[in-house]
């Protein structure tokens, strides 16, 4: 995670690494979605900033060290605080919602902000990854077209067979 990244990067010098490269790499491991999908949401910068804001640089730095020590596998994170941070960032990507942290994590980080869940922005909610896992779409934000709900969902055997009956 590029914690040294300046808050505004209006002009990237040519050949500079893509925006928030570290955060994206980590998010790929957490979410199971590839870089193309994640960047396509348009949420990378907002989630990067939200994470820093909610946790602080020091905690994020420790989390990155822990993740590196776990071989980059969030499932192998041993430290409960780091594990809870992994949960929070993944939750953010899947739903556009920053969750409440475990009470113990909140206390361990000595956070000054209230430990309440919130939708990061209206767009964040509509870009949640959860819907894509079952070929759905966020309610109220995608108009797939009249009658599309009658079709079998993509990627199912019913789809190939045309219909069910």
């Amino acid at each position, binding site marked *: 995670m590029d914690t040294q990244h300046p808050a505004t990067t209006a002009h990237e010098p040519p050949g500079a690494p893509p925006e928030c490269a570290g955060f994206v790499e980590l998010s790929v*491991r*957490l*979410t*199971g*979605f590839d870089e193309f999908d994640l960047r396509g949401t348009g949420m990378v910068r907002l989630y990067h900033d939200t994470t820093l804001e909610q946790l602080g640089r020091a905690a994020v730095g420790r989390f990155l060290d822990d993740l590196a020590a776990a071989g980059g596998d*969030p*499932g192998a994170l041993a430290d*409960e605080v780091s*594990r*809870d941070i*992994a*949960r929070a960032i*993944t*939750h953010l990507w*899947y*739903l556009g*919602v920053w*969750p*409440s*942290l*475990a*009470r113990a994590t*909140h206390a361990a980080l000595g956070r000054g902000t209230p*430990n309440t*869940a919130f*939708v990061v*922005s*209206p*767009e964040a*909610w*509509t870009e949640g990854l*959860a*819907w894509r*896992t*079952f*070929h*759905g*779409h966020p*309610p*109220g*934000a*995608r*108009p*797939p*077209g*009249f*009658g*599309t*709900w*009658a*079709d*079998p*969902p993509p*990627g*199912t*055997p*019913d789809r190939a067979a045309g*219909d*069910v*009956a």
Partner: protein
Amino acid sequence: MTAGDRHDVIVVGAGLAGSLVAKHLGDRGRRVLVLEAGTRTLDTWPGHLDALNTYYAALAKVPNAPYRPNAAAPSPDVLDLEGLPSGGYRAHGYFLQDGPLPYASDYLRACGGTTLHWMGLVPRMHPDDFAVRADYGYGRDWPLGYADLEPHYRAAEHALGAAGDADEQREAIGLPFPPGYAYPMRAIPRSHLDRLLAARLDGVPLRETPDGPGTVLRVVTTPHARNGTPDPRHDHYRPAGATGLPNYGERCVGNASCVPICPVQAKYDARKTQAAWSHRVTLRARAVVNRVLVAGDGRVLGVEYQRYDDPAAPAHTTRTAEADVVVLAAHAVENARLLLLSGLANSSDQVGRNLMDHPTLLTWGLLNRPVGPFRGPGSTSGLECFRTGPARRARAPFRVEIANWGWSWPTGAPASDVARLLGIGAEPGAPRGAGLFGTALRETLGHEVGRQLCLQFAMEQDAESRNRVTLDPRHRDALGNPRPVLTYDLSEHVKRGIAAARAVSARLFALLGADDRTAYAPGPAAPGWYRFEGRDYVFQGAGHAAGTHVMGDSPATSVVDPWQRCWDHPNLYAVGCGSMPSVGTSNPSLTMAALALRSAEAVDRDLAELRRPLVVRQPGGSS
């Protein structure tokens, strides 16, 4: 009272019922003043987009999530109820509640009313539903029947722009339609899930209990007030599009958020009727009617209302308006509140009583294949075979809606599934589970949510005088008007219906090969928890408030006559579901709309009668 503020008719409330009545009377040349408690911020396209963004940004996607709170005209919210850890509930918010069980439904006080967040399903009531006392021994009877309402059902289907298949409704449910009748639009297509269920259930006989009555299952398409494909057999029907944006919303595009807001406005809401009002109809918003004014002879003179500018800091001025006829159309609970505030129409002592809803039991499970959840309108089909029959004597009948939006209603899916799979529990103090990440999370979530099946069993609730709306002068809203107190419970008849529904659900899940995940326990999210005959249940509110100014054939036992005219006041009407003596198992608003249109004709006749010149005609003379 200014001389200028005199009208033929005052309609209180610009929701579904009021907008239809105003349209009918305006079209007939009557000067109508509509007083609306809420704001009109949703009438413009930017206002609509603001509501959509508010919805996106809301943590809990409840029916009132898109709509900004209004201190001058507060609305109840489903989040106002909190279940207690070992049963019981606590009510916060606008309603005060003191019943054994909570009244668990909301409504919306904004121009357009509750139709802004309704689902828009518009089935007709069954002919058997109008005489439940006489035929089945519970509840109250209507002073009219299906045949009296049938022409008005058609008028309501036209006014709301209903999409349905009359032949299927006739054949599968036994609803009488005139020969050759076609809904304005063809039936909204069934969801993939409906088709899966139909393939496995259609034609299968089912008994609730080994020796209980039997039925044959059939998945039936539900009529919608939602734009689809016009049916050429219905005269030149042109779907009504969005208000505030021309040529938009003339067809449902499957946004799957009808409750709480249709982004393209393909779902009917009362703003569409308002857009078609004649210039004789005047709408005055931010006008909270708080009293109906009456003369010594019982005739009403007009209303007093509180006009405010800012819904956040409601300073108001009190005004009055006069009319020959006043029509209350402020929603079942608010109509009762207004009659009680005014001390009117209550010689029968029935005002506020007989409060009903369609208490709803949710059951949920996982099918063994992807169902394509969270697509299309919230429900496109149901099972109609439990709506009537001899079983009704013993237990409440029910309609089964097949939910297209996974477990969103019972569990808050998919957000709750994401949290669960990540190991995040509801209690922040509790230790968290290890959690899944990466591909394992993505695949597990998709595999589980993609197979979510939920059935909604909507019970008929019988009219009981103990279920009621009263007022508590000690608790007032920001304009100083006493807040409503709700006293609510479920009868044994309803509880037996819910128990039967649970048994039917188990049989259906077995037939479907579904893994039943239904579980009922007390807790913060389960204010509707109760135990019955040793088993746990949780019911939900359906948003279908009814019965509070009940219609009947005698002034001694009912509030309004068969025309929804208050027995005690010949020029005061109370329209809406509050007039319904029984609610059957159909979502009530189409029946309410039919009744409202029928009453509008009566108001028009009353006005014609009043205007008849007082000259005695000579027989044979010309005039």
